[in-house]
């Protein structure tokens, strides 16, 4: 029987929730600690994650502490997905999962994050950077749609950690873009992407995690 993993998380940021989804999918017990931003940039958290960002995990079963959401989900798959339900043991698919996971964290995450900043959080609207990151988000949608055309999942015939890793930012597009998203007509312009995302959202572990996030984000308790 494994002891619960500690997941350091935040109510609103997308990345800790990708880790929670993988933990739920794999039925690995875990406790979530919700952190205030102010506590991230000092000890003891900085001892755990020198970058002062969430997520990070502590695994009492292996003594491994690890940060960066992409590195965490790789670790979880390697350590706990012994039946290879969300990963591949070997073959080209093993590396293609890594490839799409890297695309998520270097291609989707940073650009969606900047798109959120210039659309939602920056005190004044700056046309050129907003347009730049809108276009980058569309480019990511285009690449995903193309890769998914004729397929149900990014790699092979099953949902993997690579697919799951895209869900939080995918789902936050409405929040980021507001009314503007309707004009993008995602369902029509990126149909394979749209069907894929809906199928991921319908997975019980994903659904449960996202509902928990919405509850926490709305102040509904932890």
């Amino acid at each position: 029987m494994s002891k619960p993993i500690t997941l350091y998380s935040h109510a609103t940021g997308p990345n800790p929730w990708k880790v929670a989804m993988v933990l739920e999918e794999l039925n690995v017990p875990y406790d979530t600690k919700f952190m205030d931003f102010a506590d991230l940039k000092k000890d003891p958290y900085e001892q755990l994650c020198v970058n002062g960002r969430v997520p990070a995990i502590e695994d009492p079963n292996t003594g491994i502490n690890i940060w960066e959401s992409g590195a965490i989900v790789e670790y979880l798959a390697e350590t706990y997905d012994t039946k290879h339900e969300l990963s591949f043991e070997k073959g080209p698919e093993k590396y293609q999962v890594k490839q799409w996971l890297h695309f998520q964290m270097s291609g989707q995450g940073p650009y969606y994050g900047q798109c959120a900043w210039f659309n939602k959080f920056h005190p004044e609207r700056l046309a050129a950077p907003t347009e730049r990151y809108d276009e980058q988000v569309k480019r990511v949608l285009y690449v995903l749609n193309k890769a998914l055309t004729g397929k149900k999942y990014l790699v092979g015939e099953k949902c993997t950690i690579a697919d799951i890793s895209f869900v939080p930012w995918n789902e936050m597009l409405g929040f980021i873009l507001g009314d503007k998203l309707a004009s993008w007509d995602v369902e029509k312009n990126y149909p394979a992407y749209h069907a894929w995302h809906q199928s991921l959202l319908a997975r019980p572990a994903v659904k449960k995690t996202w509902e928990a996030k919405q509850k926490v984000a709305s102040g509904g308790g932890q």
Partner: protein
Amino acid sequence: MAAQPDIHLYTTQTPNGIKISITLEELGLPYKVTKIEFSKNAQKEPWFLGINPNGRIPALTDTFTDGKTINLFESGSIQQYLVDRYDKDYKISYPRGTREFYDVNSWLFFLNSGVGPMQGQANHFGRYAPEHIEYGVKRYTNETRRLYGVLNTHLEKSTSGYLVGDRCTIADIAHWGWVAAAGWAGVDIEDFPALKAWEEMMLKRPGVEKGRQVPDPHTMRELSKDSDAAKKAAEETKKWVQEGMAADTKK
């Protein structure tokens, strides 16, 4: 009988490209190189999109253990593939399951989700953007500086001088091309002494010296220190960067 490596690297002279050639040189692996001409938009040609639907460099093909071709893109996953398959003596990696193995992964993802994208945005607003937006320049130069500070603090405590444990790993190699180009992004490396010492130590490695010259001579260290030459080089690059952006918008 395991299939022999038949590695073909598709690349250009950028921080992400030279990560792979340096990794290959450090592992002593033979490889072929095809230069992807950004100025001719070669990364958007159908044959290349067949290898990498994302239309970016680097990409790599190899003969997999089953005898068939494997296509890979995303520099971080290419590095993971190369050490997983070929670094049997753990020259630039650690055995799976060790603490160091996972520490390498944390730093590898830190570079690919943090330093690379943010320094890349600093380059965009500082060097390539059609109009000067002061906020854009400052936002990304400051974030790059923050990330360099994290690296500097970490390296101050390192006994080997490398990011993880006692050896140079794919995490160090991934960072080198970006840190060597600090000045290009408007970041003064002199503000980060431990990181500067690490950058110079890395350069003394024969694999770094050889791999950084692929497919063209590596000039970023010198350009980073010469603002006039940097301005001239940026003007030349600006034209095709903006053309590429315009082409992407039409999709």
